[in-house]
């Protein structure tokens, strides 16, 4: 089932992508092709296979609760597009 224009607009909004009408149309067609390709998986018989989200066969990978030094404030901020020297600075967020 092809994606509706509303689906494309919704996904773009969730990804915070400002797309023009032309882009939405073009990307919608591309998404359709990708989904069609992936849908080949639906034809596999998985009735005997338990559901999993992991294939590494690892469980209970954890560490003990020991603190270690963090980066300095300066190091933490070094790649930020904008700071005031102490904080990351972003556009005004109003609740």
């Amino acid at each position, binding site marked *: 089932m092809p994606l509706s224009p509303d689906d494309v607009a919704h996904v773009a909004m969730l990804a915070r992508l400002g797309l023009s009408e032309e882009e939405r149309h073009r990307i919608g067609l591309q998404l359709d092709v990708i989904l069609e390709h992936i849908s080949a998986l639906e034809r596999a018989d998985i009735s005997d296979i338990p559901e999993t989200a992991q294939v590494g066969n690892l469980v209970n990978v954890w560490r003990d609760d020991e603190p270690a030094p*963090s980066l300095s404030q300066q190091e933490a901020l070094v790649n930020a597009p904008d700071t005031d020297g102490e904080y990351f600075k972003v556009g005004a967020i109003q609740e």
Partner: protein
Amino acid sequence: MTTQTVGLGVDSAYEAVIGLEVHAQLLTRSKMFCSCSAAYTNAPANGNCCPVCLGMPGVLPVMNRQAVEMTVRTALALDCEIPAFTKFDRKNYFYPDLPKGYQISQYDLPMSLRGHLDFTVNEERARCGITRVHLEEDTGTMHHAGDVLQEATSSLVDLNRSGVPLMEIVSEPDLRSADAAREYLVRLRQLLMYIGVNDGNLEQGSLRCDANVSVRKFGVSELGTKVEVKNMNSFRAVHRAIDFEIARQVAVLEQGGALLQETRGWVETRAATVSQRSKEMAHDYRYFPEPDLPPLQLGRELVERIRSELPELPEARAARLAEQYGLSTYDAALLTASREDADAYEELVDAGVSAKVAANWQMGDVAALANQHHRSLVDSGVGVVGLATLLRLLEDGTINGPTAKELLAELYEHGGDAALLVRERGLGQVSDRAALTVIVDEVIAANAQACEDFRGGKAQALGRLVGQVMKAAGGRAEPALVNSLLRERLSA
């Protein structure tokens, strides 16, 4: 379960349906998925972060084992089931305090399910179901530049809190009044503090509470439209916000209106809940399993070990104390309000102080001094051991009540050795019958009017005479002996 009825009359009476979502920061030393310190307020802004909690690409989170165990401990204390398999998921949304663009949380296979918390509300026993207790990570914090929010051109982000272990406790919609919701929260907070997983600080947000509130007419089984209420940072705010929200919803329905499913924030200064439209946007979190974290299989052995390490829980302890030491239900509840208080009480009794005296002093003078100095008994100068010494001196008659009271106030603030002070300052109680008789006779001779009043039937005149004797004896006379000597001499 106590039911709150609101509305215009019997026919139009509504009942409230309330469930609480409580978030509790765990008392670990390090963060949930990295080794940065969890004491995030001790560092300068963004001075408590690493590539993992800053959300840098290519990093790998690793679970904090103690955070997992604390969540299991909480779940067991709430009688939850611990499934054999649990995993983490990504909850996707954009907000500047969430640098990865997703929060690591738990979606369809949480760490625990189906528990309950019992409590008493308005003298009725109540039970609230616990839907689930799961583990996730906290976000960073936002500061808004400029004095006036509306005029701010930028917001400031501090990621020190990002990644601190956060436990979410979701209740069933079993609560039927603001009173019940508050009591549930009081008891849940007490429990979390008892088992040492959270510091219980609602004001500073290490413990947070959101409420899902709806109303429906009595006898209706379907749930009404649910409103999520946020921004309540005290027990009082929780109570007031829920009461307000119930009344607001009933008023809308009574006027023929329809309720909106929305998020509303409690605004203390307006004493009202206010719609938070921004939070409505895109509640489409596209959860999917966290590929960077292998799942957990918490075996029976681990779960049973954690269960065996649970301390005696507050309700059980209050019941035992009442039974074992002959305390009233009320006193037992007060003495077990915190684990520290309950431990102190039992240490006093174990040190030879009688159950009654220990209870009276702990709930009376000690509680008052703790309030006055903002220092608990354990942290005070006197300490539990010092208090036990002092109360034994009182009980064996070495000192009298007023002296004990004065000494306690001094020791609480400055510390010291009670027995030594009593010797050095000669505070020992005067119980010498002959010596006191001399003083009693002097007082009788000097207070003819009071003596006549007493003999004439004015019982309170005796109190004045007792006071005079105590004064003459430097406050150290044994009160009961003074009393009986006075009666004896006056009736002679």
